[in-house]
């Protein structure tokens, strides 16, 4: 039975599927058909096999699974008749792919068919092999294909050539066998063989350098002649398209010439004339001609330098660019991008036209043009180009804003000639399309603002103005909130006015208004609100008159469903209410953020020391740096059963504390390590700290078992704080108080010539004693003998003691006597520290922390 005359039922199925009104109906029809086909398959029904397969192909096209038909394909291929084989091979190519095991079974059939006496069957097998062969099949069948490259019928030769492409791609080792036969194909007259032969040569050049060398030497002249013949050939109706004979062959030849000419002056020389001829003689009023010109231009741009040809090529592109047809303009933009590396000057000449294309109504053209503009930007034209792009940002449609914004930001960052320009442009972008700006971009902006100390006032005032009109733009709001938190006083007092600025009058309550709007705005998300809280806390100190109002804003959030806000609300409320004395120190202005660290971290060169979950926000020391804080919070959370209030906003506070603790020292020297950034200190500390648990705690079980220890050591924190006069509401401030206490306690010691030993730290689990001595004749150096005693019933393994000092001190830590601390006061570890004070008489603190198995005990202060 003939497979194509038995189409009635296939027709019926297609009709039934077409008649379906809904997807569900269609599925039902397909399910029914599939069931019938399965039944027929299991009955091994020979008559309907081909029809079943035809149906399966249709069902497959609709996107339904058809794996159960795969074996049927193989059976059809193995049958003797041509019609069965034909549909079988088609099914093989459509339903199977090279990754399936079933495919291995077909190798033998393929081999037989490649040697079949009927050339149409050989053609079928070649076609299937060319479309789906795997590496194994390629190895097995390569000799057959090689032989068929010399077959008498050109229709077989052309298919064998394409089949060879598949083979050499799957198994590049086989390439050398195909070099000679491929070179022979280039001498053919038959267009089909020629075009496939050229493609085979192109691919051979890609996989094998020897092939490239061979074709360059032996075939360049021949190819040039072939191209010449095709270009000058008389009218050939079979291949004629719009008056050009076989444009496809033109294009493939030009492509191969490009491969041969690239990086080889001789070969390039050889093709100059014909390229010039193609570039000048080809008609450019039809698509086919333009396709050839386009390919020719690309070849001219890629081969070795010939200035005459390049001028020709650039002129063609210029003509393309001014064409009314969008297709032609698109390819022109595409090509100019490649040309820019060759002749940037020539491309710059078309800048105005390209800029117009960025505003085109066609998304594809806009995208190309934007990428091209991005490449065109340099130091001299950055200002006008950016202005154009930002102006366009206002009117561009929503889909395009994301791309456009990203590119503008990237240009501004890369080429900004001065900070004020950078800030101005970024503010424009933020107020126009702040919702499209990526987090890194506004993080970077904050870093830049923080570094531009003379522009703080100007920036915060500009932001204040921008905020009034663009409250919808989330990232603008965030930057505004941050800046007002930091530089709110400059906003109100008009500090650092620039000449070009118009004076504005902003009262303290206006500034608070902004933050309040940001908190209450329905579009603000958690990050924005959290940042706003921090800003309010800072303002509460800077604007004492607004303190009560700020409390009123913060206080209602104590019951907020979002834990983060609730926590901040409670903590900040208690700071405003109960901790007047430390508040001003807590909310000091952020130290200048380190640009190098930031950009380094952004580039991913620095491993995220603490948290990998959200590395980017590490860079934001202002409270948003939640992930940074998280590990600390976690650690402290272990303790929180005992602590009166969980450790406040964790790391933020700790950062602030650190900043506070260190800043008195640093402000005197200005170079102290602490003055870098608050985060850095924390990071440093953590980075010292974090590796150790990794080394030490071998398994989570260990960690768990050590929690007990941790608990006790947590208690140390409390115990430390309890004698202090401050009421310890949150453990972090509590952590600070011993610092002060110790500071107080030590001051008298300074005068004493004899240094008594001091219990630096004592808890139920650990005791640290410091013995001081001064080496004679060297008053700047202090020797500290630290003695660690384990009071708990557990052994501390991997005990590590770390200490930090401000920069004007030098600290030398000798190795400890052991890293295992026996339990129950059964022995001790000693470790020497040598502290050299380069500025004698200056008061300093020593920060240290200890890690045993897992838990870092926090910071203590100490003076020399």
């Amino acid at each position, binding site marked *: 039975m003939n497979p*194509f*005359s038995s189409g009635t039922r296939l027709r019926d199925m297609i009709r039934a599927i*077409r008649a379906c009104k809904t997807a569900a109906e269609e599925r039902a029809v397909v399910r029914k058909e599939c069931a019938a086909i399965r039944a027929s398959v299991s009955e091994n029904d020979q008559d309907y096999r081909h029809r079943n397969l035809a149906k399966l*192909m*249709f069902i497959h*096209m*609709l*996107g*339904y699974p058809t794996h159960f038909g795969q074996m049927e394909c193989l059976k059809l291929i193995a049958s003797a008749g041509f019609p069965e084989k*034909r549909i079988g091979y*088609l099914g093989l*190519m*459509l339903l199977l*792919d*090279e*990754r399936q095991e079933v495919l291995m079974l077909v190798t033998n059939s393929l081999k037989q068919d490649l040697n079949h006496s009927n050339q*149409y069957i050989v*053609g079928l097998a070649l*076609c299937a092999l*060319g479309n789906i062969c795997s590496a194994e099949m390629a190895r097995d069948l390569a000799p057959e294909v090689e032989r068929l490259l010399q077959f008498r019928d050109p*229709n077989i030769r*052309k*298919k064998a050539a*394409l*089949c060879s*492409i*598949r083979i050499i*791609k799957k198994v590049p080792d086989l390439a050398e066998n195909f070099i000679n036969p491929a070179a022979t194909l280039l001498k053919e007259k038959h*267009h*089909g063989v020629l*075009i*496939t032969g050229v*493609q085979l040569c192109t691919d051979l050049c890609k996989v094998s350098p020897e092939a490239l060398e061979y074709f360059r030497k032996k075939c360049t002249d021949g190819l040039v002649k072939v191209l010449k013949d095709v270009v000058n050939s008389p009218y050939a109706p*079979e*291949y004629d*398209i719009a008056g050009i004979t*076989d*444009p*496809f*062959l033109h*294009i*493939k030849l030009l*492509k191969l010439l490009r491969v041969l000419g690239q990086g080889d002056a001789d070969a390039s020389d050889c093709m100059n004339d014909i390229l010039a001829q193609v570039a000048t003689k080809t008609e450019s009023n039809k*698509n*086919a001609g*333009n*396709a050839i010109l*386009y390919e020719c231009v690309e070849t001219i741009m890629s081969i070795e330098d010939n200035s005459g040809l390049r001028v020709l090529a650039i002129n063609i592109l210029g003509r393309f660019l001014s064409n009314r047809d*969008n*297709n*032609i303009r*698109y*390819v022109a933009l*595409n090509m100019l991008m490649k040309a820019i590396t060759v002749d940037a000057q020539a491309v710059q000449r078309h800048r105005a036209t390209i800029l117009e294309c960025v505003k085109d*109504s*066609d*998304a*594809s*053209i806009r*995208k190309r043009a934007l990428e091209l503009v991005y490449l065109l930007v340099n130091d001299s034209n950055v200002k006008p180009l950016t202005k154009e792009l930002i102006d366009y940002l206002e009117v561009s449609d929503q889909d395009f804003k994301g791309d456009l914004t990203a590119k503008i930001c990237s240009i501004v960052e890369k080429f900004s000639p001065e900070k004020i320009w950078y800030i101005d442009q970024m503010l424009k972008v933020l107020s126009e399309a702040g919702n499209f700006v990526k987090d890194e971009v506004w993080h970077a902006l904050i870093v830049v603002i923080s570094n531009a100390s003379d522009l703080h006032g100007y920036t915060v005032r500009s932001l204040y103005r921008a905020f009034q009109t663009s409250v919808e733009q989330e990232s603008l709001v965030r930057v505004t909130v941050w800046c007002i938190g930091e530089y709110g006083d400059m906003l109100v007092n008009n500090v650092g006015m620039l000449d070009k600025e118009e004076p504005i009058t902003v009262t303290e309550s206006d500034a608070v208004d902004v933050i309040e709007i940001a908190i209450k705005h329905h579009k603000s998300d958690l990050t924005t609100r959290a940042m706003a809280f921090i800003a309010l806390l800072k303002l509460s100190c800077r604007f004492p008159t607004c303190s009560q109002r700020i409390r009123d804003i913060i206080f209602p959030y104590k019951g907020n469903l979002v834990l983060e806000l609730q926590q901040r609300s409670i903590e900040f409320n208690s700071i405003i209410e109960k901790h007047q004395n430390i508040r001003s120190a807590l909310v000091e202005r952020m130290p200048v953020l380190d640009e190098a660290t930031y950009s380094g971290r952004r580039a991913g060169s620095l491993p995220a020391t603490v948290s990998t979950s959200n590395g980017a926000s590490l860079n934001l020391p202002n409270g948003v740096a939640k992930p940074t804080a998280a590990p600390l919070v976690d650690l402290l959370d272990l303790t929180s059963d005992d602590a009166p209030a969980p450790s406040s906003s964790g790391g933020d506070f700790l950062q602030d504390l650190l900043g506070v603790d260190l800043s008195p020292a640093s402000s005197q020297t200005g170079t102290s390590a602490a003055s870098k950034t608050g985060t850095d200190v924390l990071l440093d500390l953590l980075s010292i700290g974090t590796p150790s648990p990794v080394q030490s705690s071998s398994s989570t079980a260990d960690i768990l078992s050590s929690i007990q220890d941790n608990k006790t050591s947590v208690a140390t924190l409390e115990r430390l704080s309890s004698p202090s006069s401050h009421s310890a509401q949150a453990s972090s401030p509590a952590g600070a108080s011993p610092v002060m206490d110790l500071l107080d306690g030590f001051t008298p010691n300074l005068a004493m010539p004899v240094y008594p030993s001091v219990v630096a730290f004592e808890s139920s689990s650990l005791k640290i004693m410091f013995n001081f001595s001064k080496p004679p004749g060297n008053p700047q150096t202090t020797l500290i003998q630290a003695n660690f005693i384990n009071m708990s019933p557990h052994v501390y393994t991997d005990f590590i003691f770390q200490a930090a000092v401000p920069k004007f001190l030098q600290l030398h830590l000798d190795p400890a006597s052991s890293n295992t601390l026996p339990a129950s006061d059964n022995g001790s570890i000693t470790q020497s520290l040598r502290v050299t004070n380069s500025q004698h008489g200056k008061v300093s603190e020593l920060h240290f922390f200890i890690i045993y198995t897992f838990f870092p005990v926090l910071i203590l202060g100490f003076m020399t």
Partner: protein
Amino acid sequence: MGIRFILMVNKQGQTRLAQYYEYLTLEERRALEGEIVRKCLARNEQQCSFVEHRNYKIVYRRYASLFFLVGVDNDENELAILEFIHLLVETMDRHFGNVCELDIMFHLEKAHFMLEEMVMNGCIVETSKSNILSPIQLMDKTS
């Protein structure tokens, strides 16, 4: 390999022919076809025939109610592909006589045979219409 896939889709976005020259799972195909068709059908006559999608470039052309979409590598000559689509349509025209969507639907296998003679493994095999059609006509005669 230049051509990655060839799709024929009607105005309603239903696939009428699909030929892939690289491996994609069924789910990936459905998703890809959906995305591309949505993108291309939304464009108007004046806009250019090229759409960038993921790592493909889609060259498409509309004939009456049928869209021909060809996915190619990024460094392929777009204008040539456009010309190729036209050649494909002309070839089908010659065989079916003013080809329409239904011809392709009900003679899916023939459409595939034609395509097979024109493209193999993503490369162009033959550009002469009579060479492309002769094996198919031979088949018709013998059957």
